[in-house]
């Protein structure tokens, strides 16, 4: 019996109570999505656009099955990991769904990761197969992973797509997985500096597609989504991969890098939904006179990944006449759980809980704090991860029964809106990506003149996008000067991704420290 028909009854019911309880005991999310679309007559409908090509749902189905067969022939078995290190392309989509179809576990890797982090992820995940391109293969060489058996390349003598074309279209049965078992991993920044593998099961994507995609956004088959965040980010994975496929919509796979690329893409492909991040909204606004955005196709503009400053929200509405619905999600809960919505936006807030998620602000003992008081954000919902791979202590610290504390400080006002108040740890986000101050400080300390360094985020009380500001004290014999500041920044540029380079370096005689010797970052934020 087809998976889709076994779920036919479930399609007509509301998902409000428990989604997981309604899933059949055998549930393969890749097969479910593919069969649902074909059964509903969407074979010839466009699943995604990529450069000058379009791929229909029938083609997607065929390529996914061929990928599963190819991977199976290569010896990839159920529960084996397969790493995918590519920008958003047809190959990354086929590899992701093909692996899940086979019961294997895809691990998309963010192409903005450092080489060290990618080596770490390949080792940590014990990926047996890596799908990438020649450029990355050269950059990573030599790869010392005793687990890696095969590298498939997008380009070169045997491109991945040509290997798929050589496969027969013979039906390969999907792996009879359960909704409770791991389907894929996503890596997220770890507090120790090394990325952590977040394990999600087959049901997670259905949960987010139902609660956010369908219920909150009203996604439907005529939508075309465009995501600034790429597939290896939890936000991008939902925006481009499983939310559109859950309703038979189309998505645009783009290699856009800056605001001009995105403006050109939106003009060309005419998406109905823009999944943005604050820095891109700010950037598109900043170039409005040079390249005005054609918003005529857009029905929704969403934002997540970091706090959207109020000033940008108002400027966007005043310039384009569209409100941005801001939300927050985490990799561990897979997608958005707090969101603003049409007609009830509170700019600067993360909005209110989605139906299906229980979101609270709690004190250290886990008791809810009264409205208006700051506490820890605790979220429970059915899209919660199984845990972090091979990180028992961090998993135990994060999970409380079916809830998780995100590490964010929040307050909930009397109307039920949630407001971000900072982090419990020293991490912060720039361009939607986590920055550890320790990593930046380590690089600054490599300059011969730097004695001590501290890095803090500054955002003018939430009015502006977060910028990285460094405070340094100098060794004897070195004097502060604009030239020295520039030299230190140049060093940082050679050793860090550019978004992590401090925008400004302030010189201090000595840096404030706590009695235990740690840098007192909060006092730097307050006094300067």
């Amino acid at each position, binding site marked *: 019996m087809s998976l889709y028909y076994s779920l036919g009854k479930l399609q007509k019911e509301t998902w409000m109570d428990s989604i997981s309880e309604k899933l059949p005991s055998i549930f393969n999310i890749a097969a479910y999505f593919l069969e649902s679309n074909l059964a509903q007559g969407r074979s010839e409908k466009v699943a995604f656009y990529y450069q000058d090509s379009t791929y229909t749902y029938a083609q997607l189905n065929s390529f996914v099955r061929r990928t599963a067969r190819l991977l199976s022939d290569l010896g990839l078995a159920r529960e084996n990991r397969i790493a995918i290190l590519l920008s958003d392309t047809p190959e990354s989509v086929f590899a992701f769904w093909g692996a899940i179809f086979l019961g294997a576990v895809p691990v998309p890797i963010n192409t903005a990761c450092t080489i060290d982090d990618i080596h770490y992820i390949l080792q940590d995940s014990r990926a047996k197969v890596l799908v990438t391109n020649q450029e990355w293969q050269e950059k990573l060489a030599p790869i010392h992973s005793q687990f890696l058996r095969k590298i498939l390349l997008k380009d070169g003598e045997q491109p991945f797509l040509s290997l798929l074309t050589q496969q027969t279209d013979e039906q390969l049965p999907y792996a009879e997985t359960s909704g409770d078992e791991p389907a894929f991993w996503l890596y997220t920044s770890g507090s120790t500096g090394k990325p952590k593998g977040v394990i999600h099961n087959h049901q997670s994507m259905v949960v987010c597609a139902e609660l956010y995609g369908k219920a909150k956004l009203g996604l439907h088959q005529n939508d075309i989504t465009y995501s600034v965040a790429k597939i290896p980010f939890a936000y991008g994975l939902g925006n481009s991969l499983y939310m559109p496929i859950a309703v038979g919509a189309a998505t645009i796979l783009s290699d*856009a*890098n*800056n*605001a*001009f690329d995105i*403006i050109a893409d939106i003009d060309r492909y005419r998406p109905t939904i823009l999944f943005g991040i604050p820095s891109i909204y700010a950037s598109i606004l*900043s170039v409005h*006179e*040079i390249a005005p955005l054609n918003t005529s196709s857009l029905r929704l503009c969403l934002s997540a990944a970091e706090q959207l400053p109020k000033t940008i929200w108002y400027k966007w509405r005043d310039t384009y006449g569209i409100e941005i619905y801001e939300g927050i999600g985490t990799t561990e809960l897979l997608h958005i759980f707090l969101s603003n919505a049409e007609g009830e936006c509170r700019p600067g807030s993360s909005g209110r809980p989605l139906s299906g998620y229980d979101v609270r602000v709690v004190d250290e003992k886990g008791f809810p704090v009264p409205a208006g008081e700051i506490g820890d954000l605790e979220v429970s919902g059915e899209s919660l991860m199984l845990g972090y791979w091979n990180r028992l202590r961090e998993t135990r610290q994060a999970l409380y029964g079916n809830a998780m504390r995100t590490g964010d400080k929040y307050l909930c006002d009397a109307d039920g809106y949630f407001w971000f108040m900072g982090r419990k740890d020293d991490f912060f986000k720039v361009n939607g990506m986590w920055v550890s101050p320790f990593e930046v400080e380590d690089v600054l300390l490599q300059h011969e003149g730097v004695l001590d360094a501290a890095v803090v985020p500054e955002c003018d009380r939430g009015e502006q996008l977060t910028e990285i500001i460094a405070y340094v004290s100098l060794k004897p014999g070195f004097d502060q000067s604009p030239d020295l500041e520039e030299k230190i920044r140049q060093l940082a540029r050679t050793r860090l*991704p550019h978004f992590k380079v401090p925008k400004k370096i302030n010189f201090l005689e000595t840096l404030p420290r706590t009695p235990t010797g740690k840098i007192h970052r909060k006092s730097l934020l307050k006094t300067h």
Partner: protein
Amino acid sequence: MSIPKTMDTLKAILANLGIPEESLHQDTLLRDNLQLDSVETVQISLELKRRLGVNVRLETRRDITLAEVCNLVEAAMSASH
């Protein structure tokens, strides 16, 4: 404005982004040689607008040299006159 003067302006903008002047030449590529990120390419465009009053869209899908940026600036200038 002449091409050499445009190049001087462009080099000044890049120097302000923290790029050492000695690494800037006619055939220097923005992405491959200077590793400019998405924010920095937009900053260059905004600075060209501020300093020279020209609208130059620096898309990133094709890597371009400093000389090519100057050509874009010149083309934009003559189009607006």
